[in-house]
């Protein structure tokens, strides 16, 4: 079938076609259904080894991949590498080649440096999934966000999605801009100038520094997590000022389309980028649905990648 995902890795959204993305979303839809069953187990990945290699601490992404792998029947190994013990350059590659020698089938990698996952993917023979590299990409987050939107709104084409917050440091924003653009949404970026990347206009998104303007008429408001270490630095003066001008509260949400939905990749800083009343509003907030879609999306990605793995029951080369 044309447009089927036929790549060895999933490193970024940027190079993917609309058809590839949609095939992954279609596949994910089937896993959403499976995940509501008592019997959630498939043997799609039976006999396969999945390694979660996280150079940055993560709870939801790592457990989401772990569950996804286990539900598909893989043997899952979690390796959390404390940041302090990691050395850059040669050591990173050494880690990858060492793991590769253990003959895993799929490695899921998160790393604090942009491009690090692609660097490792180059050195291994198995499939690699980028679970977030620096401020570059987080492709499975964008897939799960798209799945969440598509299931709730029945479409993505033509929707206005306002992505608000620390765009500068956000891989979630970058992956989402790519994906939403490819699927025909109108994307807006809202951030103070200190947290806006240079030439963000050229990403195919409308850029706003005033949240009141940027949120007007949006179907979806996607809030980004503000990393606390940015707060006391020189990017922003304080959390209270940030919340006042860029935090999502009822007053600002009123400016969006009536019934506009709210997303957040988590973990949230309540009272910093989002008001608790909004985060907990089951009518408006898709935050828990995003987590649920995360498992299904990752199952779809693992499934799609495993189809490209050498499949004869004998020795893999």
């Amino acid at each position, binding site marked *: 079938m044309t447009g089927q995902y036929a790549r060895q890795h999933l490193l970024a959204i940027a190079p993917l076609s609309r058809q590839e993305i949609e095939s992954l979303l279609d596949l994910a839809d089937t896993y959403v259904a499976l995940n509501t069953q008592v019997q959630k187990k498939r043997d799609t990945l039976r006999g396969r080894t999945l390694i979660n290699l996280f150079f940055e601490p993560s709870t939801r992404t790592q457990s989401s991949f772990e569950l996804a792998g286990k539900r598909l029947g893989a043997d899952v190994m979690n390796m959390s590498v404390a940041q302090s013990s990691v050395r850059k350059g040669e050591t990173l590659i050494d880690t990858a080649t060492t793991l590769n020698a253990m003959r895993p089938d799929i490695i899921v990698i998160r790393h604090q440096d942009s491009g690090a996952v692609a660097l490792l993917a180059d050195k291994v023979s198995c499939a690699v999934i980028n679970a977030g590299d620096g401020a570059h990409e987080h492709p499975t987050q964008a897939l799960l966000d798209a799945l969440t939107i598509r299931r709730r709104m029945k479409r993505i084409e033509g929707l206005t999605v306002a992505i608000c917050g620390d765009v500068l440091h956000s891989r979630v924003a970058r992956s989402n801009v790519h994906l939403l653009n490819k699927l025909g949404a109108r994307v807006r970026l809202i951030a*103070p*100038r*200190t947290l806006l990347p240079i030439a963000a206009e050229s990403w195919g998104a409308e850029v706003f*520094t005033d949240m009141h303007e940027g949120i007007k008429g949006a179907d979806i408001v996607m809030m980004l997590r503000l990393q606390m270490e940015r707060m*006391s*630095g*020189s*990017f*922003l*003066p*304080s959390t*209270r*000022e940030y919340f*006042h*001008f860029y935090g999502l509260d009822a007053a600002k949400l009123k400016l969006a389309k009536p019934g506009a939905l709210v997303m957040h990749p988590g973990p949230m800083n309540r009272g910093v980028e989002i008001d608790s009343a909004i985060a907990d509003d089951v009518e408006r907030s898709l935050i828990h649905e995003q987590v649920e879609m995360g498992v299904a999306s990752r199952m779809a990605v693992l499934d799609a990648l495993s189809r490209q793995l050498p499949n004869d029951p004998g020795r893999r080369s």
Partner: protein
Amino acid sequence: MSARTAIINARIVDPASGFDGTGSVLIENGAIADIGPRLFNDGKPTNAEIIDAKGQVLAPGLIDMRVFTGEPGAEHRETLKSASASAAAGGVTSIVVMPNTDPVIDDAALVDFIRRRAEATAKVHVYPAAALTRGLNGEQMSEIGLLKEAGAIAFTDGDRTIQSSLIMRRCLAYAANFDAQILAHVEDPWLAAAGQMNEGGFAARMGLGGIPSAAETIALERDLRLLELTNARYHLAQVSCAEALEALMRARQRGLKPTCAVSAHHLALNEQDIGEYKTFAKVSPALRCEADRKAMIEGVRSGQIDAIVSSHDPQAPETKRLPFAQAAYGAVGLETLLPVVLSLHHEAGIPLLDVLRCVTVAPANILRLPSGRLAKGAPADLVIFDMGSPRKIDPNEFHSHTKNSPFVGRLMQGRVLRTVVAGKTVFEG
């Protein structure tokens, strides 16, 4: 004064409209209700207090973008009350007060404090400038958005330059985000720390450490390059040397729109005025050489320099009666601002409209104030002065709390006859 006041027989000089001629003004409810050469041609207005200006100059009240006070924290130097009395006596109807107080004005509640204190005690409009970085530490930007909402008119670290180019860049970007005005003091802190006066033969003979004018140019060039990246509203608080003004002009040629002011000190004095270690002439940036002073005057003449400020900085005797190197920087200037501005007309031959523009509509436009102009609907902030009257500067006549003026004993021209703020006379000379 009643709600209606008419000033008649005035020589109206309004740089905003370019009008210089005889006429009258009608003031109602604190604003200019009518103005013009033919106003009251059909007879004096009834029901209004009449002030006969007797042909003296009536101009918009002066707007001074750079005033230091000691309130809060050093009230023995100057309070908002005494600074405003000094301003009123000098024909200044609006002052921008620097955040260099104790505590530093870096919090919305403190901006509110200054505004309330001023409302309760000051005779003239007081506009608080808030700190650009917290505690003026040059490290963490202040809450520019909240401070602006609280009423901060501009953002500045006062007499300090932010050392880190990265922090400065982010401050500029963040200020641009809120369309906030920056007032920048530019002086390379390391070069400045090595001296106390302008570098040159004079400082060398005196045995004093020199600060080269390059200290200003280097810091300014950096800021201008950062401005290119951020496009903020940037105002050079005080230009003092020819090279810095040239750097500013080059930036304007590149399409940037920085504005700048020069202090009255740098227009009227040069390094030689330090004489025998006179600490009242120790100001920051340092008084420069005569060529730089002349370049500043030419900058005003050509319009390259937008505004003139007093850089009023009251210092108590205990911080000035010290060896030159140990003495504090700063000089009072609110009551000598107008005479210095007029000297540019009397002595340098710059048209009166042009010199007054630098202390009225030009700063008003930079700060986006409705004042600084004589037009229907504008606030009735006015000054009537005798532009020719000679006087010897006598510190005992000063209304400021401290008297550290480098102009003491100097013969100057210009005497304020009346200062009106929001239609109310706040000073009569």
